[in-house]
Every structure is written in C-alpha cells, then in structure tokens.
C-alpha cells in the first residue's frame, strides 16, 4: 500500500475543511491508516488555510513532512503557489482557477501574482498540473459551495480507487437533501479531469 500525502490549501470559508474530512474518510474506507490535521480558529476568518491528509499502511505524524506532498489540492491560486515548493518533483498539482485578493492587495499595499508569474511557476514543475475551473463547474450546478466536492472529483480521477467508493463516502457524510447536488459535483469534477491530459 503506497503512502500518499495530500495538502489542501485555500482561503477560510471555501470549504477546505470538509474536503479534508471527506478525503480522510475515503482513505479509511479504502483500508488505509489515516491521519489529518487542520488549522482552525483565527485562520478561518478569510485567512490562509491548510489541511494535511495522509494515507499509509501506518501513519505517524498527522503533518505531511516538508517536501513530501504527493497531491496539492489548491482552492485558490495564491494559496496554491504558497505551497508549491512542498510538492514532490513528480507530485500532482490541482489548482482551482479562482483568485481571492487579500485585503492588502485591495488596499494597494502589495500586488497579486500576475498570470505570467503563475504560469512560469507551474511550468517549472515536473509533475502533472491541472488548472481546474472549479468555481465555474460548481456554479454550473448553481451552488458555489460544492467547489470542494468538484475538486475532490477531479482529484479522484488521479487515484487508484473506484468512483463507487468515493460515492459511498459522500452518501455517508453528506446530509440527504444535499446528496444529489454533491454527487453531481463529484461527477462534474471527475469527468472534467478524466477528459484532460496534463495541461
């Protein structure tokens, strides 16, 4: 059983916490030992958030050791770039194409990375990079809050587990009235990623 380290990054309020919970539950359902770690509190108020999820035969630390990220799931561009150097050379990056400007950018104290700089940083990577239009896919379903499940759907296409296992976890974890929406979101993300080679 190959150990897999995930890092989920984004901005407080984007739904990264639930994504981490679901990902941990999937690992457990697949028979892995699983640990995860979240930062709560001050960070959720529009601050940067990062969640660690680890699957392995036996997991010790709940924190992914430096530089050993196999999959970076970034909900926001800047928060993806911030952790890019922790991804293994052959690791996979899923970067949601959403920019949320920090207040220091709005008030003119700093600038947001320009698209050319983003592409340059991504271009230097050896492993696969997916620029996921996650918010767009979620809005197609009429609800920006399913962004997290859309991104998990995209991630699922890169992992050797059946879609049925993921859907079973969704069924267990998502309240009934939102289940169908989330199942669609998962499919939306999964199909999008399956249709694309590395870009």
């Amino acid at each position, binding site marked *: 059983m190959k150990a897999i380290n995930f890092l989920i990054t984004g901005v407080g309020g984007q739904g990264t916490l639930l994504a981490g919970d679901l990902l941990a539950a999937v690992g457990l359902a697949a028979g892995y030992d699983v640990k995860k770690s979240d930062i709560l509190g001050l960070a959720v108020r529009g601050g940067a958030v990062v969640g660690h999820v680890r699957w392995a035969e036996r997991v010790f630390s709940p924190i992914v*050791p*430096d530089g050993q990220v196999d999959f970076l799931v970034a909900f926001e561009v800047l928060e993806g770039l911030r952790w890019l*150097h922790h991804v293994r050379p052959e690791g996979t990056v899923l970067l949601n194409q959403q920019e949320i400007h920090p207040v220091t950018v*709005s008030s*003119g104290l*700093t600038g947001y990375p320009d698209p050319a700089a983003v592409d340059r940083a991504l271009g230097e990577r050896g492993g696969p990079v997916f620029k996921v239009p996650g918010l767009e896919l979620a809005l197609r379903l009429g609800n920006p809050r399913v962004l997290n499940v859309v991104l998990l759907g995209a991630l699922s296409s890169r992992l050797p587990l059946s879609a049925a296992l993921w859907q079973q976890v969704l069924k267990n974890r998502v309240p009934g009235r939102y289940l169908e929406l989330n199942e669609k979101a998962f499919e939306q993300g999964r199909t999008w990623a399956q249709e694309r080679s590395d870009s």
Partner: protein
Amino acid sequence: MRALLSGNEAIARGAYEYGVQVATGYPGTPSSEILENIARYPEIYAEWSVNEKVAMDAAIGAAYAGRRALVTMKQVGMNVASDSFFYAVYTGVKGGLLIVTADDPGMYSSQNEQDNRHYARFAKMPMVEPADSQEAKDMVGLGLELSEAWDTPVLLRTVMRISHSGSPVELGQRPPRDNSPVALERNPHKLVSTCLWARDRHPVVEDRLQRLAEYACTVSVNRIEWGDRRLGIVTSGPVYHYAHEVWPDASYLKLGLPYPLPTALIRRFADGVERLLVLEELDPFLEEQIKALGISCQGKALFPLTGELTPAVLVESAAAAGLIAAPPPLPPPLPLPGRSPVFCPGCPHRSTFYLLNRMKNVVVAGDIGCYNLGALPPFDATDTMGSMGASIGVAHGFDVANISDPFVAVIGDSTFFHAGIAPLLNIVHNGGKSTVVILDNHTTAMTGHQDHPGTAVRLGGAPATRVDIADVVQACGVHDVHRVNAFEIKAVRRALKDALAFDGPSVVLVEGPCFFVGPGPAGAYEVDPAACVACGVCFRLGCPAIVRSDEVYPANGKPQAFIDPVLCVGCDMCAQVCGPGAIHPVDEPVSGVEQ
C-alpha cells in the same frame, strides 16, 4: 466500530463512554469543539460557563457531589481557573474530575505559548498526555479512574495538533449512570480549605504525589519500546509520532502519564541506551526533572524552545547537531503576498475600527476576540491587547497615569461578561473617566459562535434568560451610556465623540449581530463605474468583497473599486462612506440611492 475523530471529538467521546455526567468550560481555540461535541450527548449535562474559573468551580462542585465531571479550556484559560484547581488538589474529589487544557504550541490562535504541563507540577496533580485521538479518548477514562482512585483532580493536556488532527478511534458504549438526586456527603474538614484544616491536607497531597510517581512506573501508558539501543528518545504527546518520522528505529520511552515523573522507569531506559534525547515541545519540563535525577540527556541544547517540534523542525535541528545527515534543501518558496485574517463581509466590528483608524490620536486598549483584527491593516487602530478583559483595566491605567491622548477600551460582549465587569466597577469605584466601547455581536464569534449570558439560548439550544449589557453597565454605576447600531457609521461616530467628551466613565454599546448569527445576507451592492472617483475610501473598510477594479478613474489614474457579488452580503457600510454615492444595491438605480 471505528471512526475518524479529531482529538477534541475523541475527548468528547471519552466523556460519553467513561460516564461523565457534568461538563463545563469556556470556549477558546483549540479547545472549543470538546464541549460542543459533549453537548450532542443528551446523557451529559453540558454548559458554557461565564468564564474558566466559574467552569472549574462548577465542575469541582459536581465532583464533590460524586458525579464524574470534566472541565475544558484553552491554555490561557487555566490562568483564569488556577485559583480554583489549586484548592481542589487539597480537598480532593469524590466523583472523578478531569481538567482538560488545550495548549497551543506554535501560537496559531493565542497570545502566548505557555506550557501548561507546569500547572500539573505547580498544583501537584497528575497529568495525562495523549499522542493521537485513540489515546485522547482512552486517557479520559484513565484520568477519571486515577482521579477517583487517588482522590485528586487530573489534568489532561492536549495541544492544537492533537485537538485538531484526526485519526481512527475504536468506539465503545456508555455504562449506565444514575442521575437521580444525590446527597452531598458533608466533610468540612476535607472540603473547607481554611488554613486550620488545609494544613492537614498538604502532607496528604505530598504523600499522594510520591506514591503516584511509583504507580507511574507501572502504568501501561508509560512504556519502553526497545529498538536500536544507540539512541533512546524520551517523549510524550504528538512529538512521539513526529520523532518516528525521523528516527523510525530508535528506542522510545513514551510517557502518557508524564507527571509525576516515573523516575525508576526513566533510569531503566537511560541505562539501556547509549545516547538519551528528550524531545518535548516548549519548555524543558521533562528534561530538567530528568537532569535533576543525575541522568545525562540532551534536549533544549539541540531543539528549539519555541513552536511545534514538527518533523521538519526535528530534521533541521538534528541535522544541525550532526545526529542525522542533512536532507537536500527544498526549493525556495516563491515571493508572495501574505494573507492575514480579516473582518468578514457584513461584520459589525468594521464601522468601529474604520472610525478608530480615522481618529488617529485616540489610543485603543484592545481585548480578546475577532475585533483584535482591528490591530491589522487597513485599520492599524489597536494599541494594546493582552488577555481577557484587560482592555478596561489597561484603559484605567492610562487614565490614572494621565496620558495626554484620548483613549478608549474596546471589548466584545462575551469577553465583557467573562472578565470585563469587575474592571468596569473598578473604574466607577475609583472615580475613573475611561470610555469603554463594548462591541455586542450577540455571540462568542472568534471561537465558533458559542452562546454567553447575553444570548437567548444556551449550549444545546435550550432557551436562556438574556442579560442586557446596558442594564449591567448601568447597575455598575456608569450613567453615560450610548447605545448605537453598528451598521450606522454616523451614529457610531457621534457616540464615540460624545463619550470621549464626557467628563466621567462612559460606555458606547455598539450593537449588531455577527453575520453568522444574524438574519443572513441582504442583496449584494455594486459600484457605478461612472460615479466612482477612485478615492479609495471604501478600501479603508478592509472588506474582502471590495477589490480593485481593472478600470482606472482617468482624473487621478487610480484603480476604481469593484464589489465581488459572491462575497458581498449587503451590509451597506461601503455605501455610507462613499462620497460621490457610487455604491448602491445591485437592483437599485443610481438615482435611487439615499445618501
């Protein structure tokens, strides 16, 4: 059945499975989810107490009555509660009493990085320390058993990385518990800590601690795991797991009951290894005690005193000390702007700090809560912040020190109830003239929207008597009270000015619900590009929904404002500060804006 639980969920589950009947606490990251999860078990009486000391006394009273009790707080909450658990160590308990402290190495959401293991030693009570969620649940049971067997409160010390990390936990059942009325067993000689009788209790405490140290050598949570004998590592808590990432083959002495120190066990381990390392976050709590035994070991000479000892920190320090080969360096991080937490769109605190930012000469003594973000850009308004309720006492200190600038204390509703009433009485009693701004957002927002005496419900959803802050303030003897709507910036400005001008103690009560407990979003607003003069005033509100537009106002070449319709909740504050009236609700024509 196995479930993936956070450390906090596991502690709550432990309270359920080990028959806790009364649970109290005050919210504080990283501890808050413990009591929130306990409240989901109807078998357990759970309450948010008004502060940690009250929570501690209530739990002690329940334990005196023979109920199993648990009290929870963050690390600095133990400072507030300390007056009480010190006496409980002397009196002992009847039902098990477990005190849960959630420490914050790394200071993710705290004003300091204090190491509460010292409280176990200081107050002379045993301490258990879990390393993952399964242990967190198990140690609730162990702690309660120890408490009853040894007639003492027991400290369970978790840290953020245990509380907010998830790992699998085997679930069990709750034993039947009798909740019928119980007579208090009267024993004043034991339970009344007058000096005459408490004097007899001190030798009991010392004797108990000595015998507990012997017991600690036999308990299974303190265990030697022999591996490669060239390196022995003494550790506890999450560092046990971090160390395995770096030294998977070393010998380990894992301490789940690290206080009182199992001295004979430590000697045996030290004798069995060539080199002894003590790996612990924050203070050299174990190391100093081990060295005092005359055992040679290394710890803080090689590893940092501050922050978490994550695998990365262990690797860096161990490589610098020549214990391991240095790994290849990571690629350098990209130079990127930071992202600090901010007031949410629709936050009622925004008006006060927008105004305090503009009242440059006003000194602001701040307090603990979301409104502490008023110290950050673009507000840069808060000058001091230290602990719960400190704002009002510090402002009074400014007053009696006769500082030359005008000054205010700024404190939230939950914090006011927690520790703000006594210092307000102090101002009145001593003839002070401070202005106290109370930001009443009807919840304890920062820690996840818990109730408090000013809310109409209590933990678990039952209705509660709502205490009106204005009534409290007036009963304290403050008569210059200005009650204003947080979402009316002009009214808040007028109240601040009037209160500052008043020659006596005054209170500005700024009322408006936190967005998360309020009526929900109104329609989004938008900026009319034809009317926006790119003056930048709306950016000073620090609202995440107001961003720079790609359009530039030709007359000054500056970027115009744009409102993100997904983030905007229609609080109207930006429309109130917009000079040319360029901001209005999305579906409202420009001519219809009432400004």
